[in-house]
């Protein structure tokens, strides 16, 4: 059986190997994916973001358990940062998802950012495709959780859930992060904390302010960010959260569905183009050593980086038209 058919029949090892090939920029991965038709039904992709320790993994664990009761297949992509020094990574999100390890209908993949900024790894969009082949109905993307650079997840998700905890940082922190602007649902987790109500009030007033500043944005149901309080460790509020996710989904479908699917495809295509151009440019450089020549030119003060960029691009385009 070929690798793609194996993944479609539920072979987790085949799926895991293909994700590794994508992570390692193995050109064979793209070839394999080119040959398979797009899945007719796409998974619901839910981005889970928020500060470290907010409870992202525990919430993902609980959401998954709830969805399993409805016989859904779940994919989880848990991203943790790579060390900028060694390139290694400590991937620890599975610690909070221990009960899911041997569930046949759950596929969890930990990914290191490998130098990517924006809170997710470059291979996430490919991994979503692989999990869709595997048959996932829902895919959770859990971001790094640094808190202020997590907006890349929005491009790849249908719904973004921001997890905050009471009493941690003030409203300015959330405003700075820009993450509020891309969130569809805000979860106030650890809601047994005494500051819970205050945090909810702050979030509400921030959203009210946004509406006043941007009156052109649609008002009413569509623009509303839902706030849900939960205690992930006990399961409190999980039903509300699932309901909020479903409601968001239904609302979008009623609106013609195109919104988030179009957005996801756009992000995916751009991502693929960047990757392809990057790898072709690297090939070009390997054959022509153009980059080193430019560096010498700049070092010896015959040129500058802006001029060299133009020159390199021109040469690259020429090279590309003769080789492809």
């Amino acid at each position, binding site marked *: 059986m070929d690798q793609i058919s194996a993944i479609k029949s539920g072979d*987790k*090892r085949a799926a*895991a*190997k293909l*994700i*590794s090939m994508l*992570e*390692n920029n*193995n050109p064979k991965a793209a070839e394999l994916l080119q040959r398979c038709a797009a899945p007719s039904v796409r998974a619901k992709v839910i981005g889970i973001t928020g500060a470290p320790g907010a409870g992202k993994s525990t919430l993902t664990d609980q959401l998954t358990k709830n969805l399993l009761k409805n016989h859904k297949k779940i994919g989880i992509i848990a991203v943790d940062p*790579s*060390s900028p*020094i*060694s*390139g*290694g*990574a*400590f*991937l*620890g999100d*599975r*610690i*909070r998802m*221990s009960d899911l*390890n*041997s569930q046949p209908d759950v*596929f*969890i*993949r*930990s990914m*290191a950012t*490998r130098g990517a900024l924006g809170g997710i790894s470059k291979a996430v969009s490919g991994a979503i495709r692989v999990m869709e082949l595997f048959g996932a109905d829902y895919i959770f993307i859990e971001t790094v959780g640094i808190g202020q650079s997590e907006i890349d997840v929005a491009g790849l998700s249908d719904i973004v859930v921001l997890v905050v905890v009471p009493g941690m940082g003030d409203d300015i922190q959330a405003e700075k992060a820009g993450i509020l602007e891309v969130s569809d649902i805000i979860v106030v987790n650890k809601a047994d904390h005494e500051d819970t109500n205050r945090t909810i009030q702050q979030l509400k007033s921030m959203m009210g302010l946004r509406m006043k500043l941007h009156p052109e944005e649609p008002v009413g149901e569509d623009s509303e960010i839902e706030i849900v309080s939960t205690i992930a460790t006990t399961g409190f509020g999980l039903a509300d959260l699932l309901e909020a996710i479903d409601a968001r989904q239904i609302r979008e479908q009623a609106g013609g569905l195109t919104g988030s699917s179009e957005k996801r495809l756009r992000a995916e295509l751009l991502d693929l183009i960047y990757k392809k151009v990057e790898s072709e440019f690297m090939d070009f450089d390997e054959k022509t050593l153009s980059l080193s020549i430019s560096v010498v030119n700049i070092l010896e003060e015959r040129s500058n980086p802006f001029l060299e960029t133009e020159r390199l691009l021109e040469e690259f385009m020429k090279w590309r038209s003769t080789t492809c």
Partner: protein
Amino acid sequence: MDRPIRVVIAKLGLDGHDRGAKIIARALRDAGMEVIYTGLRQTPENIVEIAIQEDADAIGLSSLSGAHNHLFPKVPERLREKGAEDILVFGGGVIPEKDIAPLKEAGIAAIFTPGTTTTSVIEFIRENVGR
């Protein structure tokens, strides 16, 4: 192709002493590897399942409770059942000298006892992962 080695570091059974496992995890990370840390109280079945989903090159098992003879061999056994015996398995912890040979016989490629330097673990992994 140059890519980070992926290693699952796991604690089997009811053994709650995870300091050693965490030190090894940290050392491997600092050596440029991607370490998937499972947390405590894992079964051999779970560990193999994790290694498969994570496409790990190696599994490191840590034991300080004396249950290694019973629990360690189940991991390579399960890997064979799943057709994933190419994944390297090594172990470490408080393990008496006399137990090492039978564990190796059972498919644990190396056993690291107290006093081992992290460098020797890193070197062992680099030299022995199948790729």
